[in-house]
Protein backbone atom coordinates (compact mmCIF):
# COMPACT_ATOMS: atom_id res chain seq x y z
CA UNK A 1 0.00 0.00 0.00
CA UNK A 2 2.77 2.38 0.99
CA UNK A 3 4.71 1.50 -2.14
CA UNK A 4 1.72 2.27 -4.34
CA UNK A 5 1.39 5.63 -2.65
CA UNK A 6 5.00 6.48 -3.50
CA UNK A 7 4.54 5.41 -7.09
CA UNK A 8 1.43 7.54 -7.55
CA UNK A 9 3.12 10.51 -5.91
CA UNK A 10 6.08 10.16 -8.24
CA UNK A 11 3.77 9.93 -11.25
CA UNK A 12 1.87 13.05 -10.13
CA UNK A 13 5.15 14.92 -9.75
CA UNK A 14 6.16 13.88 -13.25
CA UNK A 15 2.82 15.06 -14.61
CA UNK A 16 3.33 18.47 -13.03
CA UNK A 17 6.92 18.82 -14.21
CA UNK A 18 6.27 17.78 -17.80
CA UNK A 19 4.63 21.08 -18.86
CA UNK A 20 7.30 22.99 -16.99
CA UNK A 21 10.01 21.28 -19.04
CA UNK A 22 8.09 22.07 -22.18
CA UNK A 23 7.88 25.75 -21.38
CA UNK A 24 11.51 26.01 -20.38
CA UNK A 25 12.80 24.81 -23.74
CA UNK A 26 10.29 26.94 -25.65
CA UNK A 27 10.13 24.63 -28.68
CA UNK A 28 6.64 23.28 -29.40
CA UNK A 29 7.82 20.35 -31.53
CA UNK A 30 10.54 18.92 -29.33
CA UNK A 31 8.32 16.10 -28.01
CA UNK A 32 7.32 14.92 -31.47
CA UNK A 33 10.12 12.34 -31.97
CA UNK A 34 9.60 11.03 -28.44
CA UNK A 35 5.84 10.75 -28.95
CA UNK A 36 6.30 9.09 -32.34
CA UNK A 37 8.78 6.55 -30.97
CA UNK A 38 6.69 5.82 -27.86
CA UNK A 39 3.44 5.41 -29.75
CA UNK A 40 5.04 3.17 -32.36
CA UNK A 41 6.63 1.12 -29.58
CA UNK A 42 3.27 0.76 -27.81
CA UNK A 43 1.52 -0.18 -31.03
CA UNK A 44 4.21 -2.65 -32.08
CA UNK A 45 4.43 -4.24 -28.65
CA UNK A 46 0.71 -4.74 -28.22
CA UNK A 47 0.39 -5.88 -31.82
CA UNK A 48 3.12 -8.43 -31.12
CA UNK A 49 1.24 -9.65 -28.03
CA UNK A 50 -1.96 -10.02 -30.01
CA UNK A 51 -0.31 -11.77 -32.92
CA UNK A 52 1.53 -14.07 -30.52
CA UNK A 53 -1.73 -15.10 -28.87
CA UNK A 54 -3.37 -15.67 -32.25
CA UNK A 55 -0.46 -17.75 -33.55
CA UNK A 56 -0.23 -19.73 -30.33
CA UNK A 57 -3.89 -20.72 -30.50
CA UNK A 58 -3.58 -21.55 -34.19
CA UNK A 59 -0.59 -23.85 -33.65
CA UNK A 60 -2.34 -25.48 -30.70
CA UNK A 61 -5.42 -26.09 -32.79
CA UNK A 62 -3.27 -27.44 -35.58
CA UNK A 63 -1.50 -29.83 -33.21
CA UNK A 64 -4.83 -31.14 -31.92
CA UNK A 65 -6.41 -31.47 -35.34
CA UNK A 66 -3.96 -31.47 -38.26
CA UNK A 67 -6.81 -32.20 -40.68
CA UNK A 68 -8.31 -28.74 -40.22
CA UNK A 69 -5.25 -27.06 -41.73
CA UNK A 70 -6.83 -25.02 -44.60
CA UNK A 71 -9.58 -23.46 -42.48
CA UNK A 72 -7.24 -22.61 -39.63
CA UNK A 73 -4.68 -21.19 -42.04
CA UNK A 74 -7.20 -18.81 -43.64
CA UNK A 75 -8.44 -17.58 -40.27
CA UNK A 76 -4.90 -17.21 -38.96
CA UNK A 77 -3.83 -15.09 -41.91
CA UNK A 78 -7.01 -13.01 -41.71
CA UNK A 79 -6.60 -12.44 -37.98
CA UNK A 80 -2.94 -11.54 -38.30
CA UNK A 81 -3.76 -9.11 -41.10
CA UNK A 82 -6.43 -7.41 -39.00
CA UNK A 83 -4.18 -7.17 -35.94
CA UNK A 84 -1.29 -5.91 -38.00
CA UNK A 85 -3.41 -3.24 -39.65
CA UNK A 86 -3.96 -1.64 -36.22
CA UNK A 87 -0.22 -1.11 -35.84
CA UNK A 88 -0.13 0.18 -39.40
CA UNK A 89 -2.86 2.73 -38.62
CA UNK A 90 -0.57 4.06 -35.88
CA UNK A 91 2.29 4.13 -38.35
CA UNK A 92 0.19 6.01 -40.91
CA UNK A 93 -0.95 8.57 -38.31
CA UNK A 94 2.63 9.11 -37.12
CA UNK A 95 3.79 9.52 -40.69
CA UNK A 96 1.00 11.97 -41.45
CA UNK A 97 1.65 14.05 -38.32
CA UNK A 98 5.46 14.00 -38.20
CA UNK A 99 6.77 16.09 -41.04
Amino acid at each position, binding site marked *: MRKLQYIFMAMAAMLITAPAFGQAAGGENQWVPLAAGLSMALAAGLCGLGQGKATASATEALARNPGARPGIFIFL*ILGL*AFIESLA*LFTFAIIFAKVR
Partner: protein
Amino acid sequence: MPNQLLFTRVLNHAFAGPVDKLLAAVHVTPAYAQAPITNPVAMELLVFALLIAYFLIVRASLSVETPNGVQHLAEMTHEFISEQGESIIGHGYEKFTGFVTALGLFILLCNLVGLVPGLESPTAAISVPLGLALVTFFYYQYQGIKANGAGYIKQFLGPVWWLSPLLFIIEIISHVARVLSLSVRLYGNMFAGDLLTLVFFSLIPVGIPLIFLGLHLGVAVIQAYVFVLLTMVYLSLAVSHDH
Protein backbone atom coordinates in the same frame (compact mmCIF):
# COMPACT_ATOMS: atom_id res chain seq x y z
CA MET B 1 11.34 18.73 -61.43
CA PRO B 2 10.44 15.71 -59.31
CA ASN B 3 12.68 12.70 -58.89
CA GLN B 4 11.90 10.45 -61.84
CA LEU B 5 12.69 6.83 -62.52
CA LEU B 6 14.08 5.93 -65.93
CA PHE B 7 10.82 4.43 -67.14
CA THR B 8 8.87 7.51 -65.97
CA ARG B 9 11.30 9.77 -67.78
CA VAL B 10 10.89 7.82 -71.01
CA LEU B 11 7.10 7.98 -70.71
CA ASN B 12 7.14 11.70 -69.93
CA HIS B 13 9.48 12.36 -72.84
CA ALA B 14 7.09 10.62 -75.21
CA PHE B 15 3.64 11.50 -73.84
CA ALA B 16 3.92 14.73 -71.79
CA GLY B 17 2.04 16.83 -74.36
CA PRO B 18 -1.03 14.59 -74.90
CA VAL B 19 -1.29 13.79 -71.17
CA ASP B 20 -1.23 17.49 -70.32
CA LYS B 21 -4.02 18.11 -72.84
CA LEU B 22 -6.03 15.20 -71.41
CA LEU B 23 -5.61 16.51 -67.85
CA ALA B 24 -6.57 20.03 -68.96
CA ALA B 25 -9.76 18.60 -70.48
CA VAL B 26 -10.80 17.30 -67.03
CA HIS B 27 -9.61 20.52 -65.31
CA VAL B 28 -6.60 19.07 -63.52
CA THR B 29 -3.35 20.98 -63.47
CA PRO B 30 -0.29 18.75 -62.94
CA ALA B 31 2.38 20.05 -60.58
CA TYR B 32 5.00 19.89 -63.33
CA ALA B 33 3.85 20.46 -66.90
CA GLN B 34 7.02 18.79 -68.19
CA ALA B 35 6.37 15.61 -66.16
CA PRO B 36 2.64 15.00 -65.67
CA ILE B 37 3.14 11.21 -65.32
CA THR B 38 4.22 10.38 -61.77
CA ASN B 39 6.31 7.37 -60.74
CA PRO B 40 3.39 5.25 -59.40
CA VAL B 41 1.36 5.76 -62.59
CA ALA B 42 4.34 4.81 -64.74
CA MET B 43 4.97 1.70 -62.63
CA GLU B 44 1.29 0.77 -62.84
CA LEU B 45 1.46 1.07 -66.63
CA LEU B 46 4.55 -1.15 -66.63
CA VAL B 47 2.78 -3.78 -64.50
CA PHE B 48 -0.27 -3.50 -66.75
CA ALA B 49 1.86 -4.08 -69.84
CA LEU B 50 3.63 -7.05 -68.22
CA LEU B 51 0.33 -8.65 -67.23
CA ILE B 52 -1.19 -8.15 -70.68
CA ALA B 53 1.93 -9.67 -72.25
CA TYR B 54 1.71 -12.63 -69.83
CA PHE B 55 -1.96 -13.23 -70.61
CA LEU B 56 -1.32 -12.95 -74.36
CA ILE B 57 1.53 -15.47 -74.15
CA VAL B 58 -0.64 -17.85 -72.12
CA ARG B 59 -3.53 -17.49 -74.57
CA ALA B 60 -1.31 -17.96 -77.62
CA SER B 61 0.48 -21.03 -76.31
CA LEU B 62 -2.50 -22.93 -74.88
CA SER B 63 -2.32 -26.58 -75.78
CA VAL B 64 -3.96 -29.74 -74.49
CA GLU B 65 -1.27 -32.23 -75.51
CA THR B 66 1.94 -30.39 -74.63
CA PRO B 67 1.32 -27.73 -71.96
CA ASN B 68 4.38 -25.56 -71.43
CA GLY B 69 5.68 -23.82 -68.29
CA VAL B 70 3.66 -20.64 -68.71
CA GLN B 71 0.46 -22.63 -69.02
CA HIS B 72 1.31 -24.60 -65.88
CA LEU B 73 1.83 -21.32 -64.02
CA ALA B 74 -1.53 -19.98 -65.20
CA GLU B 75 -3.27 -23.23 -64.27
CA MET B 76 -1.67 -23.16 -60.82
CA THR B 77 -2.90 -19.59 -60.29
CA HIS B 78 -6.39 -20.51 -61.39
CA GLU B 79 -6.47 -23.60 -59.18
CA PHE B 80 -5.23 -21.65 -56.17
CA ILE B 81 -7.85 -18.91 -56.58
CA SER B 82 -10.60 -21.45 -57.23
CA GLU B 83 -9.65 -23.45 -54.14
CA GLN B 84 -9.71 -20.35 -51.95
CA GLY B 85 -12.96 -19.20 -53.54
CA GLU B 86 -14.63 -22.55 -52.98
CA SER B 87 -13.65 -22.64 -49.31
CA ILE B 88 -14.66 -19.01 -48.60
CA ILE B 89 -17.51 -18.11 -50.96
CA GLY B 90 -18.74 -21.66 -51.50
CA HIS B 91 -21.42 -22.30 -54.10
CA GLY B 92 -21.28 -20.00 -57.12
CA TYR B 93 -17.73 -18.75 -56.66
CA GLU B 94 -16.90 -19.28 -60.36
CA LYS B 95 -18.16 -15.92 -61.58
CA PHE B 96 -15.83 -14.02 -59.24
CA THR B 97 -12.58 -15.82 -60.10
CA GLY B 98 -11.84 -13.54 -63.06
CA PHE B 99 -11.98 -10.33 -61.06
CA VAL B 100 -10.19 -11.80 -58.05
CA THR B 101 -7.40 -13.35 -60.14
CA ALA B 102 -6.78 -10.11 -62.03
CA LEU B 103 -6.77 -8.13 -58.77
CA GLY B 104 -4.44 -10.59 -57.04
CA LEU B 105 -1.96 -10.80 -59.92
CA PHE B 106 -1.92 -7.02 -60.29
CA ILE B 107 -1.25 -6.44 -56.59
CA LEU B 108 1.34 -9.21 -56.43
CA LEU B 109 3.25 -7.83 -59.41
CA CYS B 110 2.93 -4.26 -58.09
CA ASN B 111 4.42 -5.36 -54.77
CA LEU B 112 7.20 -7.42 -56.31
CA VAL B 113 8.25 -4.83 -58.87
CA GLY B 114 9.60 -2.72 -56.00
CA LEU B 115 12.30 -5.32 -55.32
CA VAL B 116 13.88 -4.71 -58.73
CA PRO B 117 16.57 -2.02 -58.54
CA GLY B 118 15.60 1.06 -60.53
CA LEU B 119 11.88 0.43 -60.11
CA GLU B 120 9.58 1.15 -57.18
CA SER B 121 6.34 -0.31 -55.84
CA PRO B 122 3.31 1.64 -57.01
CA THR B 123 1.47 0.25 -53.97
CA ALA B 124 3.82 2.22 -51.70
CA ALA B 125 1.92 5.39 -52.74
CA ILE B 126 -1.45 5.78 -51.03
CA SER B 127 -3.46 6.54 -54.19
CA VAL B 128 -2.88 3.12 -55.81
CA PRO B 129 -4.12 0.93 -52.89
CA LEU B 130 -7.00 3.38 -52.44
CA GLY B 131 -8.01 2.89 -56.06
CA LEU B 132 -7.82 -0.89 -55.72
CA ALA B 133 -9.87 -0.80 -52.51
CA LEU B 134 -12.51 1.42 -54.14
CA VAL B 135 -12.78 -0.91 -57.13
CA THR B 136 -13.21 -3.84 -54.74
CA PHE B 137 -15.81 -1.90 -52.72
CA PHE B 138 -17.97 -1.03 -55.72
CA TYR B 139 -17.57 -4.52 -57.18
CA TYR B 140 -18.81 -6.34 -54.09
CA GLN B 141 -21.67 -3.88 -53.55
CA TYR B 142 -22.69 -4.39 -57.20
CA GLN B 143 -22.50 -8.18 -56.82
CA GLY B 144 -24.49 -7.99 -53.59
CA ILE B 145 -27.26 -6.00 -55.26
CA LYS B 146 -27.17 -8.33 -58.24
CA ALA B 147 -27.44 -11.44 -56.06
CA ASN B 148 -30.03 -10.20 -53.56
CA GLY B 149 -31.89 -7.46 -55.44
CA ALA B 150 -33.70 -4.98 -53.24
CA GLY B 151 -33.32 -7.42 -50.34
CA TYR B 152 -29.65 -6.45 -50.15
CA ILE B 153 -30.70 -3.52 -47.94
CA LYS B 154 -31.72 -6.05 -45.28
CA GLN B 155 -28.04 -6.79 -44.64
CA PHE B 156 -27.69 -3.22 -43.41
CA LEU B 157 -30.73 -3.21 -41.16
CA GLY B 158 -29.93 -5.86 -38.58
CA PRO B 159 -32.20 -8.49 -37.05
CA VAL B 160 -34.85 -6.32 -35.33
CA TRP B 161 -36.74 -3.48 -36.97
CA TRP B 162 -36.61 -0.94 -34.12
CA LEU B 163 -32.80 -1.06 -34.04
CA SER B 164 -32.48 -0.59 -37.80
CA PRO B 165 -31.94 3.23 -37.90
CA LEU B 166 -28.96 2.85 -35.56
CA LEU B 167 -27.61 -0.28 -37.23
CA PHE B 168 -27.97 1.24 -40.70
CA ILE B 169 -25.55 4.04 -39.77
CA ILE B 170 -23.14 1.62 -38.10
CA GLU B 171 -23.18 -0.72 -41.10
CA ILE B 172 -22.54 2.14 -43.52
CA ILE B 173 -19.57 3.24 -41.42
CA SER B 174 -18.22 -0.30 -41.21
CA HIS B 175 -18.51 -0.76 -44.99
CA VAL B 176 -16.66 2.51 -45.64
CA ALA B 177 -14.06 1.55 -43.04
CA ARG B 178 -13.34 -1.57 -45.13
CA VAL B 179 -12.05 0.71 -47.89
CA LEU B 180 -9.87 2.51 -45.35
CA SER B 181 -8.47 -0.66 -43.80
CA LEU B 182 -7.84 -2.38 -47.16
CA SER B 183 -5.98 0.59 -48.59
CA VAL B 184 -4.03 1.54 -45.46
CA ARG B 185 -2.99 -2.07 -44.81
CA LEU B 186 -1.47 -2.54 -48.26
CA TYR B 187 0.04 0.95 -48.36
CA GLY B 188 1.43 0.72 -44.82
CA ASN B 189 3.04 -2.65 -45.36
CA MET B 190 4.71 -1.80 -48.64
CA PHE B 191 5.77 1.67 -47.53
CA ALA B 192 7.08 0.44 -44.18
CA GLY B 193 8.99 -2.35 -45.93
CA ASP B 194 10.68 0.11 -48.27
CA LEU B 195 11.45 2.46 -45.38
CA LEU B 196 12.88 -0.38 -43.27
CA THR B 197 15.22 -1.48 -46.05
CA LEU B 198 16.29 2.14 -46.56
CA VAL B 199 16.98 2.66 -42.85
CA PHE B 200 19.10 -0.48 -42.62
CA PHE B 201 20.96 0.47 -45.80
CA SER B 202 21.88 3.74 -44.14
CA LEU B 203 23.03 1.92 -40.97
CA ILE B 204 24.96 -0.98 -42.53
CA PRO B 205 25.41 -0.64 -46.27
CA VAL B 206 26.62 -4.19 -46.97
CA GLY B 207 25.01 -7.58 -46.49
CA ILE B 208 22.55 -7.13 -43.63
CA PRO B 209 19.84 -5.24 -45.59
CA LEU B 210 19.53 -8.33 -47.79
CA ILE B 211 17.71 -10.03 -44.90
CA PHE B 212 15.15 -7.24 -44.89
CA LEU B 213 14.77 -7.47 -48.66
CA GLY B 214 13.92 -11.15 -48.12
CA LEU B 215 11.44 -10.15 -45.43
CA HIS B 216 9.95 -7.62 -47.84
CA LEU B 217 9.53 -10.35 -50.44
CA GLY B 218 7.53 -12.39 -47.94
CA VAL B 219 5.44 -9.38 -46.93
CA ALA B 220 4.72 -8.55 -50.57
CA VAL B 221 3.35 -12.03 -51.28
CA ILE B 222 1.40 -12.22 -47.99
CA GLN B 223 -0.20 -8.82 -48.51
CA ALA B 224 -1.36 -9.70 -52.02
CA TYR B 225 -2.83 -12.91 -50.56
CA VAL B 226 -4.53 -11.01 -47.72
CA PHE B 227 -6.06 -8.53 -50.15
CA VAL B 228 -7.44 -11.37 -52.27
CA LEU B 229 -8.69 -13.18 -49.17
CA LEU B 230 -10.49 -10.11 -47.81
CA THR B 231 -12.03 -9.39 -51.20
CA MET B 232 -13.42 -12.92 -51.20
CA VAL B 233 -14.72 -12.59 -47.63
CA TYR B 234 -16.50 -9.33 -48.50
CA LEU B 235 -17.91 -10.91 -51.67
CA SER B 236 -19.14 -13.93 -49.71
CA LEU B 237 -20.82 -11.66 -47.14
CA ALA B 238 -22.42 -9.57 -49.89
CA VAL B 239 -23.84 -12.46 -51.91
CA SER B 240 -24.99 -14.58 -48.94
CA HIS B 241 -28.74 -15.20 -48.83
CA ASP B 242 -29.30 -16.19 -45.22
CA HIS B 243 -30.09 -12.74 -43.83
